[in-house]
């Protein structure tokens, strides 16, 4: 896939320059590194802060979800690379309103170490930090090793729910608990059809034949559960729903579902898939609340799709449907 860029080393900084120039009402750069985006307004004293961070190349994840009812700040790494601990510490400082800060991010080795280190760095500044890590990708480890699973699009639900709790004035323990509850209630599975190119690498991250797809592949090209000929949309959707249902039964439950494009796959195809998703949920008596269909967590120009299912209770549902706003998503 061809990319529109200048010098690859400037990709992320130029992207952030454009993002903040286009949406000054939502985002501002914070700190010296140029790699922390915070909400445009000042931090509300007494509000619990929520920070995230991770590699670039996943817009709207991570940076895009900074905004009212969502995140307070985000540390931004190079494409598919963790930001530094110092940048994460800066994001925590930007999010600090004196009531503590929740670190909410995906389960990847580098990010874990760096957010822990960032916590050490800010502990000298009397900022209380808690951690919730998303590990929603069921294809990345079996249920017995659920803690080893990668974090993928489930992040979007966790950001939304934790963000609403913080906005509502809940304290750090309560925000952390509800974020953990949301993370635990999410299951995702993806299928990739094509690769994408990390600008500084200059060539596709992985190879996949013109008529192949890979079920369960990760958002950086991590191996999935099978690779085979491209199947019809309905067959793909059914298998993904089978896998989700096997991991988390939702009979009679209230759920939300995210049918997410990994980037190049157009909304037309997402809607074709959504027919099956909805029919399968109807068939087990699940009620769909606020379904999301679109590009919520991507890998640049990768073609493919992921489904994320979240099982709701009253508290989660109220927080999910509460207002939020950012340049990429708005609820309420």
């Amino acid at each position, binding site marked *: 896939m061809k990319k529109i860029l200048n010098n690859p080393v400037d990709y992320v900084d130029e992207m952030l320059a454009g993002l903040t120039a286009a949406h000054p009402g939502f985002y501002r750069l914070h700190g010296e590194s140029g790699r922390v985006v915070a909400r445009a307004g000042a931090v509300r004293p007494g509000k619990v802060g929520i920070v995230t961070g991770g590699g670039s190349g996943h817009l709207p994840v991570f940076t895009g979800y900074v905004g009212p009812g969502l995140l307070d700040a985000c540390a931004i790494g190079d494409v598919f690379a*963790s930001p530094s601990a110092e940048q994460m510490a800066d994001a925590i400082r930007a999010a600090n309103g004196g009531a503590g800060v929740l670190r909410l991010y995906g389960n990847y080795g580098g990010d874990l*170490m760096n957010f822990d280190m960032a916590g050490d760095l800010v502990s000298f500044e009397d900022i209380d930090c808690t951690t919730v890590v998303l590990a929603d990708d069921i294809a990345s480890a079996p249920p017995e090793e659920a803690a080893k699973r990668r974090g993928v699009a489930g992040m979007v639900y966790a950001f939304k729910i934790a963000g609403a709790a913080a906005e509502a004035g809940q304290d750090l323990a309560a925000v952390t608990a509800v974020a953990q509850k949301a993370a635990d209630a999410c299951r995702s599975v993806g299928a990739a059809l094509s690769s994408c190119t990390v600008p500084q690498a200059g060539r596709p991250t992985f190879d996949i034949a013109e008529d192949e797809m890979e079920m369960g592949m990760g958002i950086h090209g991590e191996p999935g559960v099978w690779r085979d000929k491209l199947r019809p949309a309905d067959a793909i959707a059914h298998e993904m729903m089978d896998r989700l249902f096997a991991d988390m039964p939702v009979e009679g439950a209230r759920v939300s579902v995210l049918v997410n494009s990994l980037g190049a796959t157009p909304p037309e195809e997402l809607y074709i898939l959504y027919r099956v998703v909805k029919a399968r949920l109807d068939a087990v008596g699940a009620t769909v609340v606020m379904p999301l269909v679109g590009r919520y967590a991507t890998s640049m120009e990768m073609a493919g799709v992921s489904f994320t299912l979240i099982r709701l209770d009253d508290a989660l549902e109220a927080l999910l449907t509460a207002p939020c706003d950012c340049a990429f998503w708005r609820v309420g």
Partner: protein
Amino acid sequence: MSIDRAAMVAGITRLTAEMERQFDALNAADGALGDGDLGVTMTRGMRAISGGVETLPDDLGMALLTCAQAFTKSSGSSYGTLMATGLMAMAKALRGRTAVEASEVSGLAALARDAMQARGKADLGGKTVLDSLDAVARATAGLGDPAAVRAAAVQAARAVMDEFRDRPATIGRARIFADKSRGMDDPGMLAMRGIVEALAG
């Protein structure tokens, strides 16, 4: 002949030069199964430390803290963060001291190893930098003569590579290609061999 600020600065200078020399080799080793940035991580970190060498304090603890921060600022890669973690652990232990004896090297390596293990949550024996530090800590235990400590450390950092070469990777992206990784050196262990060699002088 104990290790003081001057010895530390000399070590930093040698290590910085060594990492520049190994830039391509480390990137390539990491690039075989990982993202290929290990040379970048090490040269960036060492350049930052070298750049601030003039203002390093005599307090070895404070000096090591400054070195650690150079890594937390310059890189988000695992190895940089692990280096910072190890340096911080040693910094805490040496707070207020202006000299350290060769006989303490083993204990300091073990401190770094343990802190890095706590941070990265990997097991010993997993073919990572932890195994290099563990080998150095064990090989230098009970030694007090500076030359003997140096020799034992270098010898251990080299020997551990042969010991682990044919094992599968258990950490990071390389773990995904565990089978492929047999017969290949772990890039973090490779970097640690260079570090130990350079510091030993």
